[in-house]
């Protein structure tokens, strides 16, 4: 049979040389035959391959179409278990560097994605924790809520606000959007304030007006009443008190002096 194989190799080499227009070459032909002889030596199977070949021999080597049913069953039983071992062996071998490289690339992409998401989340949290931005959000929220709630009952809200302006000329102006529901309360406050001392008034006036609105504005009104309230608060209680009693009292004296003159 080696003669047949040799003649087949020679035929293949001759055909190869003929295709390359080198068919009359006397030196290349033995070199190609020598090169082709490299593939004639079959290596001994290793332990893992021998195990796989052993399953095949149990099933009957060379019997493909007429394989009996009984030997085929152990081979079929071996085949699901064998690929697991084979895959474990191949993945552990240094030959599968391509798969390992792909896995490493995938891992690097996942790491970069995770890092990006983490940095974005951290930046968002840091930005949200800033006081100014939070205040701006609360301002915006207040503006939106006041706009939405104030647009419907506008006629009702505007009515109680004017009475507060004569009651408090300084405080209601900045607090007015937040102090709208509590407008009657500061209107009553100046009525009780003039009974106490004058310096106690500035502390009492802003506290009911500011507490419903925003606590951050407490020091700001505190600075304002120090200069203003001493005069204003003295005038404020007098204005509501003086005109109210004078209006009923004055007409009476005006009519009375008319009598003595007569």
């Amino acid at each position, binding site marked *: 049979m*080696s003669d*047949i*194989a040799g003649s*087949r*190799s020679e035929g*293949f*080499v001759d055909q*190869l040389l003929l*295709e*390359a*227009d*080198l068919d009359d*070459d006397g*030196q*290349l032909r033995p*070199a*190609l035959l*020598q*090169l*082709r*002889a*490299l*593939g*004639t*030596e*079959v*290596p001994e*199977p*290793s332990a*893992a*391959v021998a195990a*796989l*070949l052993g*399953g*095949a*021999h*149990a*099933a*009957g*080597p*060379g*019997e*493909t179409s007429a*394989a009996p049913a009984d030997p*085929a069953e152990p*081979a*079929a039983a*071996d*085949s699901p278990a*064998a*690929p697991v071992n*084979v895959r474990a*062996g*191949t993945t552990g*071998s*240094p*030959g*599968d*560097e*391509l798969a390992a490289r792909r896995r490493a690339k995938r891992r690097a992409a996942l790491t970069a994605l995770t890092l990006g998401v983490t940095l974005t989340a951290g930046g968002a949290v840091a930005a949200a924790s800033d006081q100014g931005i939070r205040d701006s959000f609360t301002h915006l929220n207040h503006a939106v809520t006041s706009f939405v709630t104030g647009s419907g009952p506008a006629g009702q809200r505007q009515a109680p606000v004017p009475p507060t302006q004569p009651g408090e000329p300084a405080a209601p102006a900045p607090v007015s959007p937040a102090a709208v529901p509590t407008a009657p309360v500061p209107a009553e406050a100046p009525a009780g304030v003039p009974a106490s001392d004058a310096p106690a008034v500035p502390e009492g006036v802003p506290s009911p007006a500011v507490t419903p609105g925003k606590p951050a504005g407490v020091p700001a009104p505190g600075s304002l009443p120090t200069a203003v309230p001493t005069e204003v608060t003295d005038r404020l209680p007098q204005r509501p008190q003086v005109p109210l009693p004078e209006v009923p009292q004055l007409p009476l004296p005006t009519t009375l002096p008319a009598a003595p003159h007569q």
Partner: protein
Amino acid sequence: MLDTLAQAETEEFENTAGADPAVLFAAAYRSFAGPVQGYLKARGVDDPEAVTQDVFLAFYPRIESLTGGLQGAKSLIFSIAHARMVDHYRRLERRPHLTPYDPHDDARTSPSAEEDAAGITGGAAAMLEGLADEHQEVLALRIVADLSIEQVAAIMGKSTGAIKQLQRRALQNLKAQTLKRNQANHE
């Protein structure tokens, strides 16, 4: 002998798409283990025997999805062998060459007179040295692995026309190289 056996088994497995994978594996090993080892030897891979076993171990799990009988198995096996060879050379590129000098490992010796006299295939493995990488690959796949032009084109990712051209140039270069060697040996 192996060629005729492989040819007979190839014809036998031609229409056995649903054959038992273990039987197909055994037939593939008997038919192609020698050519795979010869191909790896010709390409200068370290420890070709171990890599041959590794190729067949990687081939076994893919038998289930194999089509084309033994011819399909042949293409697949040499595709795996080609990938292992490429991995080998990539690994060599990354590996620094820092071996200390050892006179026993010095390869700069005169060729073995016994090999020259007997014409043993030991010199055949080094026959392709000096050729371009693609020329070596085409000759190894065509001559040692006994693959067709189409199969070589599929493995190397080129057109059949490109493979024919590569094969022609590789044979011409091999001829020139063989002439030089013969002249050097005569001198």
